[in-house]
């Protein structure tokens, strides 16, 4: 494992993209940074600009308005950058599957590295997912 990979997995800066979610997953994401879970212990930070991002947390069912913007955001992120689908909506469109303006699940649009199911997923589930992703990257993807 190179120094670069090691540093990357020890300091993940997260950019949070809401692609038309109901805000439940977003609240749970913010919970990870509260004193109870305190994910900054592992060097994970929520940042405001996509240019600084190492991971995109995407929530919500993709609709026709948000898909082109999401593609643009993914292209703007400096590589290497992982994509994390948070919540049942991003995974499979959930209850909005037959809705008139909802397009495709996220992994048909962007290369997704990690799926976190749940409606909304609990912070423990997200931390568990991140640990699995880190082990995967460290073993050499």
């Amino acid at each position, binding site marked *: 494992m190179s120094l670069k990979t090691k*540093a990357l997995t*020890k300091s993940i800066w997260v950019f949070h993209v809401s692609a038309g979610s109901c805000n439940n997953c977003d609240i749970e994401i913010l919970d990870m940074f509260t004193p109870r879970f305190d994910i900054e212990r592992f060097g994970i930070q929520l940042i405001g*600009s996509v240019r*600084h991002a190492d991971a995109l947390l995407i929530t919500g069912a993709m609709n026709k308005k948000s898909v082109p913007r999401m593609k643009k955001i993914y292209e*703007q992120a*400096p590589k290497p950058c992982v994509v994390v689908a948070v919540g049942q909506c991003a995974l499979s469109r959930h209850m909005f599957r037959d809705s008139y303006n909802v397009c495709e699940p996220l992994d048909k649009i962007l290369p997704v590295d990690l799926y976190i199911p749940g409606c909304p997923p609990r912070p423990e589930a997200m931390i568990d997912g991140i640990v699995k992703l880190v082990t995967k990257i460290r073993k050499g993807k």
Partner: protein
Amino acid sequence: MTLLFNYLIFPGLLFSAAIGLFAGWFDRKLTARIQFRVGPPWHQNFTDIIKLLGKETIYPAQSGFTFLLSPYLGFLSVGLVATILGMNLISAASGFNGDLIVVIYLMLIPAIAMILGASASRNPLASVGASRELKLILAYELPFLLAIVALIIKCGGVIRLGKILELQALGSSNIVSWSGALAFIVCFFCVQAKLGFAPFDIAEADQELMCGTLIEYSGLPLAVFKLTKAVMLYILPLFLIVLFMGKDTSLFFVVLKYIGLLILIILVKNTNPRVRIDQALGFFWKVPTFMGLASVILALVGQ
């Protein structure tokens, strides 16, 4: 050769960046403890820099050389400040006449580099950040210079850091007198604004401007900007120590004073909300400016 070694390695760039990154970790850890969190491990800021070096560098179309070169402008000038201050603390004879003025000028350059880079990035949020940074410079430079003028008058007109240190070693620290104490309080507010810490983190407001001036930076230039910030966190408290608390400059006491100032800065940062830019300008041109004037008058009458 020794000059190059001094600039690049020992009191200069490498050493000050390492100390600054460590101080940056101290800031994050103490902030976390204040918020009842655990906080990151000690190597966190070093890891961040190494990670940023390995990332892709994206620059906006038509941004030009200014965008990529301005981070180095800031970093190299703060490195020079660290060298001058460090050498003066090691031996008071190593300075030159007028190095106080040079240090004051060089400490302004990181802010100017940030304005240049933000303006070159052609991002609307970055340009808002740049304009706020510019107004903040206008706000804090006036009381900062007044406080330093008071200090120069108090030391009998010397503009040499080594001489100021010698005078304090012979007599007492500048902070013990009335004019010195007032000037120290003014300088402390200005240091908070120069570091870009709350309540004066207006230019890089995370929540409203998404990192403001740094919004378009990624990879290596962003790492250089982070290093500049780290070195600033090392040199500004050191500058205060040299000017106001230079009685005992043995290593132990300098470290003790540095940690004390750092804790004070972090506590102010964590207990104050961000002010608006007009509030910051109003504050600096009212309270610290008059305190600075009072300090000049007290220094003139010899208090």
